[in-house]
């Protein structure tokens, strides 16, 4: 069953000439990482806030796991959806442990269960357990955002809404948190709706990107499709479709190895600098150009899982370019 189905969702704020969100319909499957992308005022945040009913739709309906959202008590609906916003959303007067425990407490979990959950979540997001007793202000921006992520995950919701959670962070911290969010997502398989206006962030994180403009969805497709087949000049401009290096940096080694028509080599020659399945092809290309024909082994958890050569890379690129030529 689909995790989320939106049917002609519309939000018209009083006194505005245009609806902020205009008859939007889409479907999200369980475990998908969806990024809502668009310029400010395009309606992406409004759409997100309709999902946890901070804004009530003017018209249209949406269903969570098949149930009409209007048929659920609004607080119950919100408690089963994780919610993370920019770090201002942490409660400054509550300690880190109390911040993380908010939703489990609302749900009436036992103290033992909550305490164990706080430890597990701090481990998951890479924060030391000593941080339990600190206040948000005593943490750096990146650490605060990790707490925000832990708090959104606290009651183990199937779906998470994230409203520009990394927007206020410096570029290095943001990239590191993106990596960790992806790592967590590979482990937990949440359904995530993630709002950003940062195209790089969207292309890195998303399984599918929902490009919005003036309250409408312009294109809803995987990052590679967005680059190869932009359905609209707006999308092409947004993604800078001709940038080959960017395209490479968006494809992981894992995806290239899984490319149809290529047998993964399992030849056991050891390299000094193995690749990781999650590395991007831009990095792979740099390394491949220095080692030459025999290629590089791909190692995951200390085990070799394939060998990537320049031939692989060319095949992937040929297909991507082909896709681009069809439009």
């Amino acid at each position: 069953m689909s995790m989320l189905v939106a049917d002609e969702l519309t939000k018209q704020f009083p006194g505005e000439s245009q609806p902020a969100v205009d008859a939007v319909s889409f479907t999200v499957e369980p475990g998908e990482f969806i990024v809502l992308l668009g310029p400010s005022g395009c309606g992406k945040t409004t759409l997100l806030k309709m999902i946890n009913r901070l804004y009530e739709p003017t018209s249209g309906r949406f269903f969570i796991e098949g149930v009409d959202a209007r048929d659920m008590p609004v607080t119950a609906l919100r408690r089963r959806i994780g919610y993370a916003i920019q770090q201002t959303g942490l409660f400054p007067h509550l300690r880190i442990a109390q911040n993380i425990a908010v939703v489990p407490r609302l749900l009436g979990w036992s103290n033992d269960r909550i305490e164990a959950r706080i430890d597990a979540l701090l481990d998951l997001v890479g924060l030391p357990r000593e941080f339990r007793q600190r206040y948000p202000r005593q943490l750096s921006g990146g650490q605060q955002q990790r707490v925000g992520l832990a708090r959104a995950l606290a009651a183990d919701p199937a779906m998470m809404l994230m409203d520009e959670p990394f927007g206020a962070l410096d570029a290095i911290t943001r990239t590191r948190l993106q990596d960790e969010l992806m790592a967590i997502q590979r482990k937990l398989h949440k359904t995530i709706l993630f709002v950003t206006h940062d195209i790089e962030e969207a292309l890195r994180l998303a399984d599918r990107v929902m490009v919005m403009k003036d309250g409408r969805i312009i294109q809803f497709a995987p990052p590679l499709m967005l680059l190869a087949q932009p359905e609209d000049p707006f999308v092409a401009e947004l993604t800078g479709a001709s940038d080959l290096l960017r395209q490479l940096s968006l494809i992981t080694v894992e995806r290239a190895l899984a490319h149809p028509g290529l047998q993964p080599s399992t030849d056991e020659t050891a390299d000094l600098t193995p690749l990781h399945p999650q590395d991007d092809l831009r990095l792979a290309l740099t390394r491949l150009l220095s080692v030459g024909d025999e290629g590089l082994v791909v190692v995951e958890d200390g085990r070799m899982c394939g060998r990537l050569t320049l031939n692989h890379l060319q095949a992937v690129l040929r297909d991507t370019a082909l896709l681009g030529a069809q439009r």
Partner: protein
Amino acid sequence: MIELLGEAYAYYLANQTRFWTEFGRHLTLSGAALGISILVCLPLGIWAARHAASAQYLINAVGTLRLVPSLAILFLAQPYLGTGFTPALIALTVLALPPILINVYAGLLGVERAIVEAAQGMGMTVQQQLLQIELPLALPVILAGIRIAAVEVISSATLAAFIGAGGLGIFITRGFALFEPRIMLVGAVPIALLALGSDLLLGQAERWATSYRS
């Protein structure tokens, strides 16, 4: 000066029972006025913050109330309410209302909107948002309002002696009537110490309420 204080202390020793009765009355009067004001202003301030557009007039009106001198409030109350404890209590309550109400209102409006929305988005009910998020975050500002009111009420309760409500002001009026500065000091010094003490105590409470910021 030291000599005068010595004489005042001698007067206190000779009139201990009377002193502590008036001291108790002064505290009761001030404490009751503050307590009633807090009980009135908390719900009223919460309502005002939730209806900020229409409540603005109320807040402005209450603000102008502060311009009326406390002595005038006491004497204005007398023809209608007579003399004694009740009219003094009412006058002091009117004096304490504005700073507390305005600070409850301003404190709640000052809570960052994004924080309240996060609480709402996580599934807190309106009451949980108020009790767990909004009031604790507004607490330092509310305490500042109570501190201002407490100092004002304790020092103004001196005037209650004029309308027969007793309190430490008794010693000041008596000393004044008899041209005996030492008797005036028996009232004035404890009042000053009480006002100072409440200021320090509530200031400490404010620091405790903002300890998470350091």
